[in-house]
């Protein structure tokens, strides 16, 4: 086992590296010791390596292969397994994105490793075992877990927005690898890919999130959520009930099924506050809720709020926010 700590870069559909990658590189450097290195997997991604060096990566292992595209897990599984077997890193980290949840479990099986997902804290024991914190029980419990140090790579994924990103020049030595991925490795055939371009920040990365619940009552009324989000530079989210009712697309869903978010500011509009919804946003720093039901459970879990009808409250609130933001 080498003492290398690997951070696998998470790439967006547009080819950019996700912010969570820089957060994890920064925290790994601060907390884990050892030589922090990055792994860059994708198609046409080689020129992104220098960005990873800017967050302290000593080495950057690059596999640039046309089969690493379309968020298709098979090629990534093979590439990362091959790299881990060849270099035996002590720790392998990644952001906990939907794609990481898709392919990292297979990697852990492929190399016989323990896997801790969606961690909100990482550290090292005195004898070099990874120690993490993660939520369980619909985010109502938080556990501290330690790897047993059996010599296999210790693999963990980290919830976005858990750590501060902090630039620092690393040696950034590029190591090009050929993981031997061929067309035959790709079992899943992508017929059509539908991704949305949006000017709003992504839910899991956003520092501010504005979410709406079933109380919005229509797809059209969700424009209130989008307008408030845009005013605050926030991402737009929703409850499962609102998604099920067809008011907004599935990728906006925050909660046990959808995305886990931890923004600085979470604004819940017409959201009652189910256990399942809290599971996805309970770690937000400041929670603000607007709900016309004085008994709504969300109020007992909010920092600030207004008990009022959203259609009456949002117009003056928007005006006041505009004033405050322009000052």
């Amino acid at each position, binding site marked *: 086992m080498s003492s290398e700590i690997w951070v696998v870069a998470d790439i*967006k*559909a547009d080819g950019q590296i996700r912010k969570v990658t820089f957060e994890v590189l920064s925290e790994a450097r601060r907390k884990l010791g050892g030589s922090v290195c990055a792994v860059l997997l994708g198609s046409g991604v080689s020129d992104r390596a220098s960005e990873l060096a800017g967050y302290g990566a000593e080495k950057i292992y690059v596999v640039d292969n046309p089969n690493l595209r379309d968020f298709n897990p098979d090629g990534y*599984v093979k590439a990362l397994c091959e790299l881990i077997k060849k270099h035996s890193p002590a720790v392998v980290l990644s952001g906990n994105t*939907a794609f990481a949840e*898709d392919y990292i*479990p*297979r990697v*852990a*099986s*492929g190399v*016989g490793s323990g*896997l801790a*997902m*969606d961690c909100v804290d990482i550290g090292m024991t005195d004898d070099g075992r990874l120690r993490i914190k993660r*939520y369980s*029980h*619909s985010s109502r*419990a*938080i*556990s*501290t*877990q*330690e*790897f*047993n140090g*059996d010599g296999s790579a210790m693999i963990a994924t980290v919830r976005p927005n858990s750590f501060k990103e902090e630039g620092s020049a690393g040696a950034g030595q590029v190591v090009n690898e050929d993981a031997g991925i061929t067309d035959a490795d790709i079992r*899943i*055939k*992508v*017929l*059509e890919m*539908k991704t*949305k371009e949006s000017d709003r920040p992504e839910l899991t990365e956003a520092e501010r999130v504005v979410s709406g619940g079933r109380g919005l009552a229509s797809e059209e009324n969700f424009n209130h959520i989008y307008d408030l989000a845009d005013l*605050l530079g926030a991402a737009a989210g929703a409850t499962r009930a609102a998604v099920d009712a067809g008011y907004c697309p*599935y*990728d906006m869903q925050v909660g046990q099924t959808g995305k886990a978010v931890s923004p*600085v*500011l979470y604004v819940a509009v017409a959201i009652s506050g189910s*256990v399942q919804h809290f599971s996805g946003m309970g770690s937000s*720093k*400041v*929670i*603000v809720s607007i709900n016309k039901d*004085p008994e709504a459970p969300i109020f*007992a*879990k*909010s*920092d*600030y709020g*207004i*008990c*009022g009808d959203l259609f*009456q*409250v949002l117009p*003056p*609130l928007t*005006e*006041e*926010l505009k*004033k405050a933001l322009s000052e």
Partner: protein
Amino acid sequence: MKIVVFITQTQDTEARIKVGSSGDSIDAEGMKWIMNPYDEFAVEEAIRTKEAYGGEVVLITAGPQRASQALLQGLAMGADSAVHISDEALGETVDSLVISKLVASELGNVEGVDLIFTGMKIIDEESVQVGIQIAEELGIAHLALVSKVIDVKPDEKKLVCQKEIDGGSVSVEVSLPALITCPDAMNEPRYASVPNIMKAKRKPMKTVSLDDVDFGSLGISRDAVGKSGAKIKTVSLEVPEVQRKLRIIKGSDETTVKGDEIAESARELVKLLRDDAKVI
């Protein structure tokens, strides 16, 4: 079609929870155990697939004796038979790698499996990984977060699905056998009727003891099942009290703000966000 559903019995996370005396797990005293809610979507999808294309639905779980209740629920929903890898040590937190190896090994004994469904997440451990790891152990493809099965082609052994990805969705085609993880957007699970609950008790349920498992061929030791041999061990667990400021602005009658109170409440909230929370 031979359709398998991997299910798990979980703690009901909506129930009251507190830390047990050992300090590293939730107190099981009085704990309500349920079929993992996402597995209900998996069972439903399996039954619908059988109804459309024929075949049989086999449930499998790895858990202590109490987990047979979850299997019975799935049988009552309409599955045909069940396999229970049973050991009390499986009631502890067990590495996902170990569970996946045990299940994959047993599925090796089930002939001609075409499709495996399982829930996208196990809610008590908040684990999304076991199902996908079963696919890796079996050497078959998996599709995570499938919101819709578009077409099953049993003769060509192919499957077309829509799956959710970051920022969108993809339609994909894969050869069978394959494993699918199911979110709640997928379907509306049926309730088991009383007669079907009675019938479920007479459906075949095979119990597999760990004594019957060839651990050598799985590349793990029997000690790997249970707390002591786990690759990842929980050293402590807390149920933190939510400390929120609870500054909720209400109307003068303790309900909604009305009339002039509305504009006033907006001003006050923005002031709090700026001066107290300092988030704008």
